[in-house]
């Protein structure tokens, strides 16, 4: 463990500082809008962390994770609205319902690979949405469920903020805890070569189903919290395929198969999308083009940094350090270091662009 900490020292330090900042931020006064933006960001990160287990570590590109989000949301919705439960226990139920559902569908679906797995999970998610919308006696159908909200405002804001932040920490800890153990190694082995992993005596079915269930648990608890936070859920909203895609984008943006990836990617994604709605760079109103620009951003990220921004930053820094160490003493200043870093980044971006080209 000490060894692991040393290897990732920079990332751990940055992570702790980031955590500290986020934990203390509300003490300096946040507007309601900032609370909402950051709380939504934390929930996005949790769904991204969930996807990272099955998609990032195990290498199974799941495209139906929104089903777990929706089930978590509906578990909370139904229990609070129909059965008068208090909120906190419903989170656990939401997570467990989602995990159980994942295990159930995972058994057949996880036998598929590549595109086929992706499409099967997408199909499950779409079918789940339609059934929830149709099953009116239990779910109130397409009309959705409204929940009361927590009062007073400041209590609610801080409650959801810290709850969601706590879930992010839980997600990071869970990931960290598992990937240093046998289960984690089996996931990575499956990602590298599933048949070889099987030959080595790994029970791949069990490993994959556990990965999928844990994924669903994280996504499900995010859905539960969303339900109460937003105070309204409807099938077409909580089962919206965009939610899955946003989570995947966040992971890819930060770096798949790393602990920090979903967090960095989630922060970046939320910042960019929020920025695009409001900002008027150089006085130009992006107006109705903000969604288009988001699309361009996605395309550029995929082409130039397919391994994520963390990888880009650490590789640039490593390269700059190497160049830096070679240089004669006189030129070693912060400025030249940054310049070398920028040059290295440019080089890596150019390499990335050519990397998968035919």
């Amino acid at each position: 463990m000490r060894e692991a900490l040393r290897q990732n020292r920079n990332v751990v330090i940055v992570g702790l500082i980031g955590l500290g900042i986020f934990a203390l931020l509300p003490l300096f006064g946040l507007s309601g809008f900032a609370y909402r933006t950051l709380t939504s960001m934390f929930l996005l990160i949790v769904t991204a962390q969930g996807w990272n287990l099955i998609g990032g570590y195990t290498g199974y590109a799941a495209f139906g994770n929104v089903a777990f989000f929706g089930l978590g949301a509906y578990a909370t919705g139904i229990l609070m609205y129909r059965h008068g439960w208090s909120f906190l226990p419903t989170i656990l139920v939401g997570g467990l319902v989602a995990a159980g559902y994942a295990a159930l569908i995972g058994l057949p679906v996880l036998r598929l690979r590549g595109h086929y797995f992706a499409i099967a999970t997408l199909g499950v998610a779409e079918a789940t949405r339609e059934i929830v919308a149709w099953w009116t006696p239990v779910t109130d159908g397409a009309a959705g469920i409204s929940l009361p909200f927590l009062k007073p405002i400041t209590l609610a804001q801080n409650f959801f903020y810290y709850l969601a932040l706590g879930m992010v920490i839980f997600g990071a800890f869970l990931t960290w805890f598992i990937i240093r153990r046998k289960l984690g190694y089996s996931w990575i082995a499956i990602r590298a070569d599933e048949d070889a992993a099987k030959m080595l005596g790994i029970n791949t079915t069990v490993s994959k189903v556990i990965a999928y269930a844990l994924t669903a648990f994280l996504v499900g608890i995010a859905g539960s919290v969303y339900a109460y936070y937003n105070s309204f859920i409807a099938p077409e909203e909580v089962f919206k395929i965009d939610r899955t895609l946003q989570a995947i984008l966040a992971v890819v943006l930060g770096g798949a198969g790393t602990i920090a990836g979903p967090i960095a990617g989630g922060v970046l994604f939320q910042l960019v999308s929020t920025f695009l709605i409001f900002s008027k760079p150089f006085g130009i109103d992006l107006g109705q083009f903000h969604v288009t620009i988001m699309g361009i951003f996605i395309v550029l990220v995929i082409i130039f940094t397919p391994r994520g921004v963390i990888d880009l930053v650490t590789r640039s820094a490593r390269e700059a350090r190497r160049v830096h160490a070679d240089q004669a003493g006189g030129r070693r200043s912060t400025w030249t270091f940054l310049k070398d870093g920028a040059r290295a980044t440019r080089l890596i971006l150019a390499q990335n662009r050519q990397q998968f080209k035919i």
Partner: protein
Amino acid sequence: MSRHLLRSVSIGVILALLIVACQPAAAPSGNQPSGQASDCKITFGAAVSLTGKTAKEGGYVKDGYELYKDEINKAGGFKVGDKQCLIDIKYYDDASDPDTSAQLTEKLVTEDKVDLLLGPYGTNPTFSASAVAEKYEIPMIEGGGAGVKIFDRGYKYIFGTLPAAPFYLRSVIDAVLAKDSSVKTVAILVENDGFSQEVATGAEEYAKEKGLEVVYKEQYPSNTQDVSSLITAVKAKNPDMILGAGHAADAILIMKGLKDQKVNAKAYAFSVGPTSPDFRKTLEKDADFVLGIGPWTEAMKFQGTDVFGTPQKFADMMRAKYGEENYKTVPYQAASAAAALLAYQKAIEAAGSTDPKAVREQLAQLDLQSFYGTIKFSPEGIIVKPMGVVQLNPDGKLYTVYPADAANGEFLYPAKAWDQR
């Protein structure tokens, strides 16, 4: 050294990102009406859909708000106490997404510090946005969400200028029965979304109450691209009246399907669609005889003391401002949006301030004659208002045919069979 550097750079980056995230964005850039003497200004906030799937209707809503703003500012603005206040509206685009709608409403309230809120378009965004309004106890009047569940939650600060969804198709049933009491059977096709389901359930209950037999009522998925088998099933039931509860695209698809399979009913009616200009444009002659509903049409004979006075005047002003070709028929969404601002005007003037609680109290007891008819809210906050029935006449125009006192055209009944047109 380099490690220190990396560390400080990282911290710097994180801090910078946080500052960007939490900083209020650039100051509101609403257009300042110039050349008018005024003592104060009232700012409204609205997150409407200008992109995404309801961009079209969101546009009507925004146009309605803007027309009202321009006209009232020309007339000197609102009279608050002894001051004349011009009004301004700050808009954001929620991209037809409820999460974004809530986020933007939160921004309007806590950062842009708008005085009062206007609603988005669409039932789901209205759900999310109104929850934020209620949380901060700031009134929101919306003219774009009619789901009864919006008003079922015991909220005190949300008001709607569209009648409740279950009432949408009732006047159609009344209109047809008034013309022909021998009608016996009804088929209802329902889109699988919350609003449409409320419409359909309301219509079904009312039809049964009136002694009609509902021979077919089924849901179809939102975004459906093919309804041929629903049409086949409907045809087998041979209903006298076909009702559709969905959105404009479905209504068009259903009409095309009915003609394809030569399904002849005595009346066709849709909750949403016929009043939208797109309906006639896309279906052309096949839109003839179709019935639609609206809380407001330009033919209705309302009279008020507001800047518009009559529905006809409002419609003319819409055409003058946005162009004849864009508003051949003025959709009720624009009128219900303008009516929201009108309700605010009267409530603010009665309260003598823009204090949210005082305005809310005045809204609750508002009873106002206007170009939009009577504006009066139920205890739940939804407008109490009969629906008018309109018909697409073979002469290419849209006439109001029911209730009789608002009618400006003859109700052509029954609809001609497809092969006799």
